[in-house]
Structures are given as structure tokens and as C-alpha cells.
């Protein structure tokens, strides 16, 4: 009965007719996430409102051997929330309630569709916030953040999403409602909570998430330092960390981006700078004052051209505005680019940045960089023009070389975006057969029939079936990185 009118009737029985999208135009809206390279529309999109409905949907799909693709806000960058082999996409956007705020226990419980920023907005007046802050936080959902184990600028000090997830409710691919972790920590048994975060929808669907709330720090200080050479900025990053200072965020913006941002959002970054470092400190006032003084000294020691300290919230917001909208700004320079998310050990930063430039020169391409320098998480954007024959191929070669260069330095394929379809084939560059075999068996424990988000996260899965046709590779302007 799979994908037949009878199957549609079953879906409608579970979520109601208004909870199913089955028209070609409707389904097309769900054919990709923000990595528009990968397109694949699902056969149906369903929008459940309860955990019970999600359970029934998974059980139905399991019975009928139909692929299930979970989707949050669709802001992912890895071809995760698209349906390479069709099937049923379960969109969590209607399950977007804030279920509980519990300040004495420093936590909140939310439905997966709740927008990341809404949680911090709801808790701010009480003095709390949710630390993971992917650049997409005004639109991405907490369920999506937990599924991809999202990062953000401030995870240098505070860690990525998994460090902030206390408990989960998950409908597994085996058709069970699993509740793990919660307000009480250290539950005996395997740490399923930790192991399920970052599952990218291949293990099940998150239906509720208990997250840690942090108290808003006493003070925040944002500094911007510009340098004539990228090398000096990279060395400054190492020196700051080497001085035992872990800033809340430590972001690098290269010359190409400085120019694009200045022309775009007008952040007023120093003109002619070869690299800009954005440093944010938070914590007790006395601590950030002392650390800021030390950082200013370190920047001077590394030939900084100019150092600015934001005087108030408005100035701070302006310094960040440029960073947060960087990718959109670059969209004005080039319609098409490939984005990389690889990581290197932070001591190798100066070396990899030289390598990035060399790779760009070798392939006659501009590679623009705006990234989380403090933890070595690069985001090179390889700009190319898809109307120039051969340029896409050169960009793809450059991308591949870049990834290999990072891994040769002991790095990682993805620092915060995730694997999805995009990097599944790169997994063997980082992991051996035994390692991947372990992951595949782990997956099978939660998804015995292989229905959950097929083709994602692990290589050599029958993903490239019918209906999977890569479109023109590009990321839309306004992408959050």
C-alpha cells in the first residue's frame, strides 16, 4: 500500500487532512534544506502535533517500508532535511511549544519545533538564556539544533548543543517512545541522551528536549582587532588561548569578507584590514576587564592596526551584525559558492590559513573566510561562477583538497553543521571501516529496518536512488554560517 491513496488515507487518519501536504507544489517547498545542491522532494509531508501522532507515523512507515525524513526549520547546511529517495517527511514545525521553564533547576523543556532564539527571549527577563547560538538561531529550531548537534560562535566557551541537553523524548525508528535523561542528572545506564544528540534524524525523531539554561553573565565585552595580515591574526588567536583565556567567542573575518560586509550591512569594520578578529568575553566584570586588557596587549604584540572595544550594546550589536550576516554579504560578490565546515587543531590555524590561500591561488578561485577561529572551526567559502565552464569543477577540487588538508593536520570533517548527505561520502577520510561499522551497528539498534533518514550521516547507503538529482550547486544568499 506504500505511497498509494490508501497510504495517504492512513496518514490523514493519523494527523488529519490538514496535516498532510501531498500536492506537487506543496512537496516542492520541502525538496531541500539550505544546501540547495541536494534536492529530493518527499512523497508526502506530514505535520504532526503530538508525540503519539509521530509514533503512529513511524510505525506506519516501518510497516510499509517507507523512508522517514525528519525536518525542523529546514535551515541545515548539509542536505539533511531532504528526501533523496522520497518517502514521508515529518515536519516538526507544529510541535513548537515551550513546555516548561524551571529556573530553580536551571532547565527548560521544549518541543522540537521551538525556535532557538525564542527560548532565550522567554528566559531573558528571568536572567537566563540558552547558550547554543548557531547563526541561524532566529529561525532554526531546537529540535534541529539537537539533531545536528549545532554549534555557534559562543560554543568556544560553552560547548556545542550536546553539552546543553539534559534529556530527550524520542520516537525511535523501531517505533518506541524513548524518554532518557531529564532534570535529574547522572541517570544510571548508558548515556543515551548524549549518544542520541547529533543523530541527524537517523535514529528517530526528537519530540521533546530538556535543555540546560545558563544564568546571563554579569558582563560582556566585545573587542574588534584588525590586522594587515591574516598570519598575524591567526597567531593572535593562538596567543590568546595560550594565555589561558577562553573567550566566549573568538571569530575571524578575512579581507574578502571585511570588504563585503562593509559594502553590505555597513558594520564599519576597518577599511583595508587583511583580517579582523572579533573577540567576546563574558563573565564577572573584574574578570573580563583584566582579560580584555591582556588581549589588547596581545593584539598590539601581534602588530594590530587598530583595536576597538564596543562602548555599549548598540556598538556591540553592530560589531556582531557584520559577522552574523557575513554569508549574505558575500552573496553580493558571487552568486555561487561551496561552504566548508572542517576543523583543525587550533595550533595549526596559521598553517591552514596559508594553505587555504595557496589552494585558492592554485585553482584561480577566491576563497573567503569567516569562521570560529578559537576552536579551529573553519568556514572557507569557495566562490565560483557557474557560468564559467570548468569553474565548478575547480571549486569542487579545491574543496576536496581543503578538507584533506584539514584532516592531514588531525582535524575533523565537520565542526558544527553535521554530515547529512553532503559529507556522508567524506566519512571514510576520517574513520576506518571498524569505526564506521560500529556507527552502522549503533544506528541499527535504533532503526532496525533502515527507514530513518536514509542516505544521511553514513556512507554507502542506498541514497542515490531515483529522484535524487543534484541541481546547480549553490547556497542561497543569506545562508547562516
Amino acid at each position, binding site marked *: 500500500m506504500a505511497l498509494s491513496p490508501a497510504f495517504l488515507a492512513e496518514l490523514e487518519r493519523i494527523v488529519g487532512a490538514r496535516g498532510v501536504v501531498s500536492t506537487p507544489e506543496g512537496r516542492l517547498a520541502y525538496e531541500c534544506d539550505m544546501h540547495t545542491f541536494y534536492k529530493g522532494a518527499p512523497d508526502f509531508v506530514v505535520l504532526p502535533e503530538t508525540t503519539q501522532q509521530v509514533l503512529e507515523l513511524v510505525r506506519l512507515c516501518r510497516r510499509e517500508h517507507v523512508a522517514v525524513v525528519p525536518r525542523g526549520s529546514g535551515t541545515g547546511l548539509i542536505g539533511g532535511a531532504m528526501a533523496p529517495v522520497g518517502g514521508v517527511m515529518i515536519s516538526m514545525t507544529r510541535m513548537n511549544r515551550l513546555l516548561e521553564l524551571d*529556573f*530553580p*533547576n*536551571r532547565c527548560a523543556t521544549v518541543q522540537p519545533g521551538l525556535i532557538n532564539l525564542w527560548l532565550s527571549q522567554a528566559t531573558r527577563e528571568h*536572567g537566563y538564556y540558552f547558550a547554543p547560538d548557531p547563526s541561524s538561531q532566529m529561525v532554526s529550531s531546537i529540535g534541529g539544533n539537537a539533531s545536528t*548537534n549545532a*554549534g555557534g560562535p559562543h560554543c568556544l566557551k560553552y560547548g*556545542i548543543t*550536546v*553539552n546543553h541537553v539534559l534529556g530527550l523524548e524520542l520516537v*525511535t525508528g523501531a517505533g518506541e517512545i*524513548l*524518554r532518557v535523561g531529564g*532534570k*535529574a542528572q*547522572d*541517570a*544510571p*545506564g*548508558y*548515556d*543515551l541522551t*548524549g*549518544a542520541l*544528540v*547529533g543523530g541527524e534524524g537517523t535514529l528517530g525523531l526528537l519530540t521533546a528536549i530538556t535543555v540546560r539554561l545558563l544564568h546571563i*553573565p554579569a558582563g560582556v565585552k566585545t573587542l574588534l582587532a584588525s590586522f594587515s595580515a591574516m598570519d598575524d591574526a591567526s597567531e593572535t588567536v593562538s596567543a590568546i588561548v*595560550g594565555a*589561558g583565556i577562553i573567550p566566549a567567542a573568538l571569530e575571524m573575518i578575512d579581507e574578502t569578507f571585511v570588504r563585503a560586509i562593509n559594502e553590505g550591512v555597513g558594520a564599519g569594520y576597518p577599511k583595508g584590514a587583511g583580517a579582523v578578529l572579533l573577540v567576546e568575553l563574558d563573565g*564577572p*566584570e*573584574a*574578570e573580563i576587564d*583584566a582579560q580584555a586588557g591582556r588581549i589588547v596587549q596581545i593584539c598590539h604584540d601581534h602588530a594590530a592596526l587598530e583595536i576597538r572595544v564596543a562602548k555599549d550594546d548598540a556598538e556591540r550589536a553592530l560589531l556582531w551584525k557584520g559577522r552574523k550576516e557575513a554569508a549574505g554579504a558575500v552573496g553580493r560578490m558571487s552568486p555561487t559558492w561551496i561552504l566548508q565546515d572542517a*576543523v583543525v*587543531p*587550533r*595550533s595549526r590555524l596559521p598553517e591552514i590559513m596559508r594553505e587555504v590561500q595557496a589552494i585558492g591561488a592554485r585553482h584561480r578561485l577566491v576563497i573567503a573566510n569567516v569562521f*570560529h577561529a578559537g576552536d*579551529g*572551526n573553519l568556514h572557507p567559502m569557495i566562490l565560483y561562477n557557474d557560468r564559467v565552464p570548468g569553474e565548478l569543477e575547480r571549486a569542487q577540487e579545491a574543496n576536496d583538497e581543503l578538507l584533506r588538508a584539514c584532516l592531514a593536520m*588531525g*582535524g*575533523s*570533517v*565537520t*565542526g*558544527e553543521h553535521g554530515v547529512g548527505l553532503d559529507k556522508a561520502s567524506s566519512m571514510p577520510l*576520517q*574513520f576506518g571501516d*571498524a*569505526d*564506521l561499522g*560500529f*556507527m552502522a*551497528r*549503533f544506528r*541499527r*539498534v535504533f532503526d532496525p529496518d533502515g527507514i530513518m533518514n536514509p542516505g544521511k550521516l*553514513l556512507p554507502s547507503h542506498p541514497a542515490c536512488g531515483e529522484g535524487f538529482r543534484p541541481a546547480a550547486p549553490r547556497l542561497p544568499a543569506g545562508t547562516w554560517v
Partner: protein
Amino acid sequence: MSAPAVSDALAAIVGREHAPGSAAQLAAASVDGVTPRWRVRPSSTDDVSRIMELAASEGLAVAPLGSGSALDLGMPPARVDLALDLSRLTGITEYVPADMVATVQAGVRLDVLGRELGKHGQMLALDPYGGPSRTVGGVLACGATGQRRFRYGTGRDLLLGARFVQADGTVTWGGSKVVKSVTGYDVPKLLVGSLGTLGVIVEATLRLHPVQPASGSWLFAFSSREGAAAFVADVLASSLEPDRLAWLNAAALVRVGMKGVEAGVAVSVGSVAEAVSSQRVTLASVGSSHGGTVSTLDEGFWSGLGAALAGPIVVKLASEIRRLAFWTGELETALARLGLSSAVVGEAGNGVLRAAAEGSVSPEAWAKDIVAPLREALSTEGGSLVVERAPIELKRAADVWGPIPEPSLTVMKRLKAEFDPRGILNRGRFVGGL
């Protein structure tokens, strides 16, 4: 294979001096009175792999062993044939201070590692009560925590990557060697706290932290538990950033040398000197607003905290953070009813309490009057009670881990069946008989 043949095969892997172990060595590796027939001390990952391969093919029950300080943890094993002693795996494989990451072998002791990292102003922020002689692998496998978790997290947050040997001898790597990675499933999370039941950790890549330039520690003493609890609640609801927030009842305070105090909260702050002193001022004013008196502690207080938890019985209680005082009372009362005295030390910002109890109790009363009612009451808030150390007859009377709700238990059983189908790794010691 006959027993002598197994001995020969093990000796062929590690050498005669490292297997099968003398009678005394075997006795020292016994788990809840079950003495292994072999104690083997591998010197490399490859050795561990070959030993596990042998164990798998011979169906030998294996108990991995670090410093041996946590052999009490878990249910009495169904069988132990082979103690896999990792104490020779002491290499610091890779340490680039600028990366603030170190890769070390499982048998490295925390104090040895700490000295090496200290030369570069860095530390591994794991401070379990068993003390600095514990090994990295053991601390991770046991999921052992300490007071620094409030600021730095637990093994779950600090283990970036792990090399481990599966039950069939397959050497496997999970995670990464960089501070930020989401490449594939977070396999290290599965290993932390799994008591070696899914694989033997042989190498760990760890996130390090800078040692703070200045620090201060103080004890806030209160005349009531409620006063101490109100102080903790206020600190948690403030922008103060302590490293450690330890909860002590009167008996625990006596054990650390402070008599006549009903309840205490020990706090440490690490930062630049200016911020240490400014936070001390704020803490003191919060403390006095709840009737607390403050005294300065030296750093040695923290390493002595483990001694406050010495004793034949240790239980760990995890609850909602805000219910710390309530559960301290419940624990004390339940234990006192059967004539047991209890020193309670808590990780106040994390809702975790440990009680060290002394006195004699019958297994029946232990199970019926202490463990069962506390667990039932805790279950309403998702809490748990784990008996971390107890005489064997008490362990037999009440499962030390407590019940795991379904379908979590089923999922855990599926994991175990997938990765250790013959059940040779620490058989019977973990939750649900795993």
C-alpha cells in the same frame, strides 16, 4: 583450550612477567569476592586487541581494571575469568598545549597527567572522590565525577575521542581529536559511564582547561539545612561563577574537621585575582543574608573531600537540583532509622548527593526500608539512587543500579547484544544484569 594453554597464549602476547599473575595479584583483582583465573597486563592497544580476541574465542569473562579503586562498583559479576589490567598503558600519546587537548592511554593516573599538564598551566578538570591515583580510563568508564563538574562538566563533556577495543578484539575509534566536531555519532558518549560493558577504552583524547591564575575557597556554615539550601539557590540564580559548590551535612563536616556545624556549603572560585576577590565579597553577602558564617579554606580541603566519603557503604542520589536539602533529610532519616550514621557530600549545582554510611544493617532492612522507599520517592522526579559501594550481601539484596524504565532498558540490552553478543565484558555488573 585448556587453562594452561590459555595461560601460555596470554603469556605469548604480553610476556611471562605480565600473565597470568601471582595468587596475590589475582586476589587483588577480585571483584566482589570473585577471583579471576588470569590477570594480564598488556602494554599496547594491539596487546589488548589480541587478548580480547582470545577471550572472545574462548568465551572468557573479562573485567577491565584501571587502578582497581572502583572494583566495588556494580553488581557482583556472574563470572570473572580474566582481569584485563591496563596499568601499563601509561603513555601520554599526544599533547600540544596550544590545542588544549591531550591524547593519553587509559592507564595514565590522574596525578601523573596533572603534573605534566600543570607544567603548561593546564589541567584535566576531572576530580573524582577516589583521588588522583585513579586512571583516566577507569574514571571515564565509571562515569566518576567530582566537584569541578559544576563549571567544567563531566567525562561526557571532556572526552573528545576514544580508542577502544570491542568485545571481539576489534580496535575502534570514535569522536575526534579537536575540541569541536560533529562528524558521525558521538561514540565517546556511549563509553562514558558504561563500565566497560561495550568496549575497553585504551586511549582517550581529552579537552583540557587553563589553570586559573587565582583562586579562593571558602566554607559557608549554616545553622540549618534550609539556610544552606537558600544560599545555594541564591548563588545558582546569580551571575556568580563558582568552580565548585559542595554541599556537606554535619557528619561530613566533622569528617573534614569542622564540629558543631549543621550544614555547610564549600565554594571555590577561579579567575583573575580581582574577580576572585569581588566574587568573594558577593558570596559573603549572600551567605550572611541567610545567616551563614564564612571561613577560608585551603586548596587541600578539596582533595580531602574524598575522605569524608570513606566507609563500607556509599550511595549516590541524583535528584532535581532544587531538592537537595529535602533529599539530604530523607537520606539521613532513612539511614538513621536503621542505626546508620551518614556523611553526606553533594554536588550542589548538579543535584547529586553521596552518603557514606556506617553501622550494621540486615540485607532485608537495607532493601526494604532504605533502598526501595527512596527509589520509589525519587522516581516521581526522575531521580535515581545508585549504591556505589556496599558489602556483597547488601548488593545481592537490592540491585545497586535500580530499575531502568522501559523501553530504555530494552534499548540498552539491544546495544549490549549488538556490541558484546556473548556478554564477556563485565558480565552481570551493569544495569539490568548487563
